[in-house]
């Protein structure tokens, strides 16, 4: 009789990952574990991760290169900030409104932008971000222009307030995990397959009943809602926003996060966001050389690992599995011979 194995390597792996996640959730925000400054960096990293996850749906699953992530994050941030400072709204409610507005905005803009294909779409998305930044910088009565909006209250969801970085870390952590699970699930649905088929070949996709245009628009909406969520969470975390972090070059950094992590992997978005948040902090001593090294790094990345870090890990895994399979086969042949 065959013994049923309960602890397969896969399950053991999952248990280990779960333990690491829970440990991080509990330990990192404990007083004295990391400095207040680093905790803020981690919080920013989680926020970037949420925005990057939305982009991974568009870029990784759908193959659509967009430079609008930061701009749309700005939409979420500014709506949250304006509602909570100028109109005295509760911040939790302001973020929810920002999400709904972000969804509608992305839908309408997506309908227009996806009239264009491929790199034409990408160029138009640069225009979109520049347009948004122009509004953030010039609509003085609402956005306070380049000076930005100050004194944004901390997040308040009615029964709970998140006034310190520690409790906010835990909240961001939970939101990030929910977003992560959402994207993982999406990959396994007919929508995930539709997006992948659009990425690989629009003619094949259409021949299998996929409405390529709307499929792309929906991916823009998903990315937009994630970006607005990240923007709202950013505004109440920083307490201050200006047009600066929502500019086009920041959008490019989100693209690099996804490509560094690996376009085919949801976990890659986490790797990319973490590395691009932590590395700049650790390399401050390089001063002006930092940008130089960064630029060279991106070029090397694109040449030598087009599928990112997860691509390298997967390749390694395939090779190992291949070896194990071969060994099993040769074992089987040996036993047969016996």
């Amino acid at each position, binding site marked *: 009789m065959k013994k049923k194995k309960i602890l397969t390597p896969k399950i053991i792996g999952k248990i280990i990952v779960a333990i690491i996640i829970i440990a991080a959730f509990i330990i990192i925000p404990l007083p004295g574990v990391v400095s207040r400054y680093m905790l803020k960096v981690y919080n920013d990293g989680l926020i970037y991760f949420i925005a990057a996850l939305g982009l991974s749906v568009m870029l990784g699953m759908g193959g659509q290169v967009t430079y609008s992530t930061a701009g749309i994050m700005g939409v979420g941030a500014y709506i949250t900030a304006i509602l909570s400072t100028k109109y005295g709204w509760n911040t939790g409610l302001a973020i929810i409104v920002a999400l709904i507005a972000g969804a509608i905005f992305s839908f309408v803009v997506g309908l227009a932008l996806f009239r264009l294909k491929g790199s034409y779409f990408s160029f138009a998305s640069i225009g979109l971000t520049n347009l948004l930044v122009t509004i953030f910088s010039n609509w003085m009565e609402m956005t306070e222009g380049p000076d930005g909006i100050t004194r944004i209250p901390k997040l308040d969801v009615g029964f709970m307030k998140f006034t310190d970085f520690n409790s906010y870390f835990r909240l961001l952590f939970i939101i990030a995990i929910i977003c992560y699970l959402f994207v993982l699930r999406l990959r396994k*649905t*007919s929508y995930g397959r*539709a997006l992948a088929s659009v990425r*690989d070949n629009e*003619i094949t996709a259409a*021949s*299998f*009943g996929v409405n390529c245009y709307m499929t792309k628009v929906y991916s823009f909406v998903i990315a937009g809602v994630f970006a607005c969520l990240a923007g709202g969470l950013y505004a109440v975390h920083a307490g201050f926003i200006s047009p600066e972090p929502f500019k086009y070059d920041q959008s490019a950094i989100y693209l690099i996060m996804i490509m560094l992590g690996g376009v085919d992997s949801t976990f890659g978005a986490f790797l990319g966001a973490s590395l691009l948040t932590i590395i700049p902090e650790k390399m401050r001593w390089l001063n002006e050389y930092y940008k130089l090294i960064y630029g060279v790094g991106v070029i090397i990345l694109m040449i030598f690992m087009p599928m990112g870090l997860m691509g390298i890990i997967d390749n390694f895994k395939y090779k190992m599995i291949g070896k194990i399979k071969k060994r099993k086969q040769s074992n089987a042949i040996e036993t047969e011979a016996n």
Partner: protein
Amino acid sequence: MERVLLEVRDVNKAFGGVITAKNVDMKVMAGEIHGLIGPNGAGKTTLLNLISGIYEVDSGHIFFEGNEITNLPAHKRARLGLGRTFQSPRFMNRASIKDNLELGTDLRNQFTYIQSFFGKKGADFYSELEELMEIAGFTFDWNEHITSLPYGQQKLLEIVRAMLAHPTVILVDEPAAGLNKQEQERVSLLLRKAVDSGMGVVLIEHTMEMVMNICDNITVLNFGEVIAKGKPQEIATNPQVIEAYLGGENDA
């Protein structure tokens, strides 16, 4: 009783100065394998693209199960039951075999994305897949990448994927090109299986032996024009057809 599944009526199409369809008429019946042959560049693939909606006609009409579909976009035609394969196999190359096959079952189920997100399950297609793979004559681990399959198996699997969607008509573009004798035999068996279950098949093929063996009717194109139609025996002896093939590059 014969039922017309697909009708092309007086269709015209030109690319710049190149006329690729000129007053083309064609009817495909339920349970029929309809051969579409002609020399290279005759406009066979173009006609398939016009039928499936990849290209728009310049003039003329296309009817599917009695309804006009001339102005429907490609994805809507697919949802109505027009399936197809491609001259060179087109899969999602970065995805697993399973994901690629599920593109076919998704088309069959036609669930909304929301339904799919919340885990609505379609009919189990595994037994059906097993049956089709029995005919196709090979097995695979469906978690493997699609690109791990050799070319011939990819071409066979493309037909299987189209059939999993349960179309009413399948348009098949040169399924046997580049395959060995056994694999060609498997292609014929799969197409037979399709028509036996009531589908109609439009088959573009250069392998004359296969065309003559399995087609019920044949339409011959040359320079975008229908130069002959009829039973395989009639086509084989038609002087205009022989002329067209001998006049162009010899493929027969």
